[in-house]
């Protein structure tokens, strides 16, 4: 990369900055602690639920746990993501082609955290800007993909989910008449020609289009310093409301914490115990010590 390209890359990355350089370290510290703790819990759940390769998965979970513990040591915290890289790559390779997208996202976050040097503030700011850009790009692409597949203009995809998943049916019965929910649920999704998974009810169609619009517009709000807080708050509200239908806690936890990198630094510290408690609860439930079925929470 030439000097001009270098300078362009610096300017581009710094568009996601704007806050004091000394704040980056504190933000990264909370995010690193969440991310590696999440990775450790996910790895133990993987070990517990896998039908095979328990030795390999236990080794991965042990290293991920050591990495999560290291993140709490101010002296060694910058080394923690480096330690997590190898088990993450092994896990990705182990389930490759079937891996969930949030595993790629987790790996990208860990790789960006590796950039942060404990001794150099500019590197910490660079890592923070990289993580923020990652958030912006992924959020924009989730909206763009929905636009490209074309199932949200008429609400087809959400209608399909209402017809096939009870959780979506319960959520969208607020916007759809009971008879329409019943019609969608009566269709056979395994039958060629079944449908239409389409409804003329305006509030439902508007909600469907609002999701896409929000995912396309909120990334811009996250980048502009003046609108960043509102962008982050709206994106977190969107992410939380999506969870009412799609219970995808793995992606949601990761993404909410990425969005918290745009919010006042205190917010992330305040909610970290809630995320940690939920993850510990999932472990307890997976072990059979607590009620609930974390298998359905899509943490892996």
């Amino acid at each position, binding site marked *: 990369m030439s000097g001009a390209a270098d300078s362009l890359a610096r300017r581009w*990355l710094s568009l996601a900055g704007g806050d004091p350089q000394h704040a980056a370290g504190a933000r990264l510290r909370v995010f690193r602690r969440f991310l590696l703790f999440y990775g450790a819990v996910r790895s133990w759940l993987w070990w517990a639920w896998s039908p095979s390769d328990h030795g390999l998965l236990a080794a991965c979970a042990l290293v991920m746990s050591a990495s999560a513990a290291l993140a709490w040591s101010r002296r060694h915290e910058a080394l923690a993501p480096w330690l997590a890289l190898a088990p993450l790559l092994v896990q990705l390779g182990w389930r490759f082609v079937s891996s969930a997208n949030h595993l790629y996202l987790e790996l990208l976050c860990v790789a960006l955290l590796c950039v942060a040097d404990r001794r150099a503030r500019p590197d910490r700011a660079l890592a923070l800007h*990289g993580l923020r850009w990652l958030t912006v790009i992924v959020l924009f692409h989730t909206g763009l993909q929905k636009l490209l597949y074309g199932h949200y203009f008429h609400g087809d995809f959400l209608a399909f989910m209402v017809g096939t998943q009870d959780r979506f049916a319960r959520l969208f019965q607020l916007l759809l008449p009971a008879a329409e929910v019943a019609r969608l649920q009566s269709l056979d999704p395994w039958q060629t020609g079944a449908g239409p998974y389409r409804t003329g009810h305006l509030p439902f169609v508007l909600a469907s289009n609002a999701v896409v619009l929000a995912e396309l517009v909120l990334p811009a709000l996250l980048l502009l310093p003046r609108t960043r807080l509102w962008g982050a708050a709206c994106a977190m509200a969107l992410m939380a409301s999506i969870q009412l239908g799609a219970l995808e806690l793995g992606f949601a936890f990761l993404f909410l914490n990425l969005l918290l990198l745009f919010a006042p630094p205190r917010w992330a510290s305040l909610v970290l115990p809630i995320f940690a408690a939920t993850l510990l609860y999932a472990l307890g439930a997976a072990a059979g010590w607590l009620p609930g079925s974390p298998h359905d929470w899509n943490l892996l």
Partner: protein
Amino acid sequence: MTRRNGEAASPGRVRFVAALLVVVALWPPLHRVAVAAWELNPWKLGGFAMYATHTTSLAVLLEPAAGVWRPLDEAALAPPVRQALAEFRRQRDALGLLRTPRDVARVVFENEPGREHMLVTVQRLHLEPSTGRIGSRKAQYFYERSEF
């Protein structure tokens, strides 16, 4: 490498972060093209198209019987065949047309000496954007023992 605070981030790290983000930004549109070309699973392989569309694949092994093709009784298949079929289904679900069932056929022929031909059919169900109805595409793979 120790640098004083206030200096710029190292060029190597800037390049790494920029390159990583460029890849993340460019991959989803390419992923969309690959989904259209090879029927990849939109939800897999890092394209961030989860909850954008619905697709599902059904793979069935068929054998000739009285002039027609009928599904093999999967419960009666030898364990290596069942294992190969399960792995094929997992990979086919993500990789679409890029993953053919040739290895499954080989395992079938190895475990069933009397079998001379077999057919594998993969039906992919998806939501049609133009109608909102379930559409389907079928791919068929014919194999005979002499090929292996």
